[in-house]
């Protein structure tokens, strides 16, 4: 959706630092863990987000709790964000960072909707042919939708490749009417 330009800046900076120190995986997983934690403990989130709490207190508490428990560079980034009262952008930073890492590693996410569950064999076939066509590593996100009746629908970014039975039937209906 629409990104906060500030979040993009933090991501870019964090990514550069992490790459320099070859810590991309560590930062990515720690960041995801931290966001999960925020999700679970509402109080922590409220505390970090509240504008009534002075920024310095937030930074202090945060450092006390997480010092040594997460990647140092990530810790510094989040502390910096708290200092600037930007706690509400943390989730977005996490999403963008994950995306950024994927783009860096030439990984593309493809959503695959099928009418019935794909067999292991088929999944492999779809994946390899997609990888050949896109010249990128493909990460398949599958979902089964029975209303499609059969066939396969792929969504890569904003482009949909529709080869489902439901779509063919719809087209046939249009042609015959």
């Amino acid at each position: 959706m629409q990104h906060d330009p500030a979040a993009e800046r933090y991501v870019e900076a964090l990514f550069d630092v992490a790459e320099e120190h070859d810590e991309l995986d560590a930062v990515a997983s720690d960041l995801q863990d931290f966001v999960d934690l925020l999700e679970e403990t509402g109080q922590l989130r409220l505390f970090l987000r509240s504008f009534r709490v002075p920024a310095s207190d937030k930074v202090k508490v945060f450092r006390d709790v997480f010092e040594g428990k997460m990647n140092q560079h990530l810790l510094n980034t989040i502390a910096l964000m708290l200092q600037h009262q930007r706690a509400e952008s943390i989730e977005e930073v996490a999403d963008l960072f994950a995306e950024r890492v994927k783009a860096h590693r030439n990984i593309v996410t493809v959503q695959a909707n099928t009418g019935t569950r794909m067999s292991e064999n088929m999944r492999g076939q779809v994946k390899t042919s997609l990888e050949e066509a896109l010249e990128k590593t493909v990460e398949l996100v599958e979902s089964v939708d029975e209303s499609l009746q059969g066939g396969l629908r792929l969504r890569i970014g904003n482009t949909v490749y529709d080869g489902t039975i439901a779509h063919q039937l719809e087209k046939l209906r249009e042609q015959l009417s």
Partner: protein
Amino acid sequence: MEIKADEITSLLKQQIESFDVSMDVDEVGEVISVGDGIARVYGLENVMASELVQFPNDVVGMALNLEEDNVGVVLFGESRDVNEGDVVKRTGRVVEIGVGESVAGRVINPIGRPLDGKGDIEFTERRPVERKAPGVMVRQPVKEPLMTGLKAVDSMIPIGRGQRELIIGDRQVGKTAIGVDTIINQRDTDVYCIYVAIGQKASTVAQVVKVLEDNGAMDYTTVISASASEPAPLQYLAPFAGATLGEYFRDNGKHALIIYDDLTKHAWAYRQLSLLLRRPPGREAYPGDIFYLHSRLLERASKLEEKYVIVPKGSENVEDSVNGKEYRKHIEDSAEALENDLEELGKESHEVLKLPKTGGSLTALPIIETQQGDVSAYIPTNVISITDGQIYLVPDLFYSGQRPAIDVGISVSRVGGNAQVRAMRQVSGSLKLDLAQYRELESFAQFGSDLDKATQQQLTRGERLYEILKQKQYSPLPMEKQVVVIFAGTEGYLDKLSIEQVERFEPEFLEYMETQHADMLEKISEEKILSDELKEELGNIVEHFLETFAIEEEEAA
């Protein structure tokens, strides 16, 4: 019957067999927010301006606002059928409408779907709704008349084919009536008519359709309706759809007349859209491009040039052109060249043929409704400045019984004069001046009774002229009849009659002309000019009629 069922089955089989089962590639986006007939869509990165996009539940929309992080889409259907998160598909086509001659006699909505329950329409082709107006070189000045059948208009505010003449006035003063009368008057001509109803009550549109049907005018008329209950985007689209339809006729060398009823409501619809799309408001909260919108629309009305070729005598085919040259008669050099080349090739063995699909025209009669006669509001001034003249209707005249209630003083036709029939110009030459003088004297004459003879004379004349300009609704008159009636008025034959007699004069005189002097009417309609002899003869006829008319009067008394 059995055979037929078989045939159908095999046909279906064929179609299914040849059905293309390849994968389809679509570009999609997702609805972020929806409401008030507007959807904001994320994605659709390569969408074109005014491209048609497809929502679920058979709702379509038009992409109007292309912004950095989202696309503003106006919906042509109900916004309650669209939900946040719905997938929106590009169609790759800009908004189009089907055109063709088969639309004559139909009532359709702005995207070409029939509203009259008479079944599907077979269109010849589809054309984008928003098209560029023809350029300078393919046009020619207005030169053929488009008769409205109204004495007051055809005599003083003549309209030519390809002209844009504004009909402006308060509510309930007969604006639509002028448009409808003009359509009815095109019955035995080669002009196709399009009536675009924008934001009107559906019952009013139904009434207009009924009137047109009763007068046999629906055969050559298409009604495009986006009534008040329709979403604003459809109302915004309606006049453009009408113009596209009219252009189909124009581009095929035919003539068309389009009435936009009315552009005030069109401006409202566009204002609503623009404000909902968060475009900045300007004067009267209209968006900055409202002038561009209307000028773009009205500029599409035009008279296209005619092209001619020289072919061997007897040939009907323009492909047989002897020298491959195309001539334009309205350009002096080209007309001269045509004359010379024809001379050279031999006039006996060759002739001039008009190229098909050239010389078509689209005449536009936009209607604007003013509030309490305020012509200096934003939209009226805009449209006045775009059009080639205006017919201004005023309530005062309307309620005093002067109908059509045209204010002759400020109604003008800036280009129609060239197109006016000669005979009409001859009889109505002094009309405008006489009426102007009458109006000037009228107010001042109310103070005293001791007026000199010339003034008295002018007052009588003016009163009688106003009387003959009155005309009933749905009864347009052919040119020759208008000419003889106005002739009687401007030549002063009616000065001797009382006002009540003048009112009775017209129908009886026309009946007399039809029964006793049909040849005279025919002559005027054919020659389109009043020679001195014809004038004298006509004068005698009027005088003779007035003698019998006066006698009848005495008998009646």
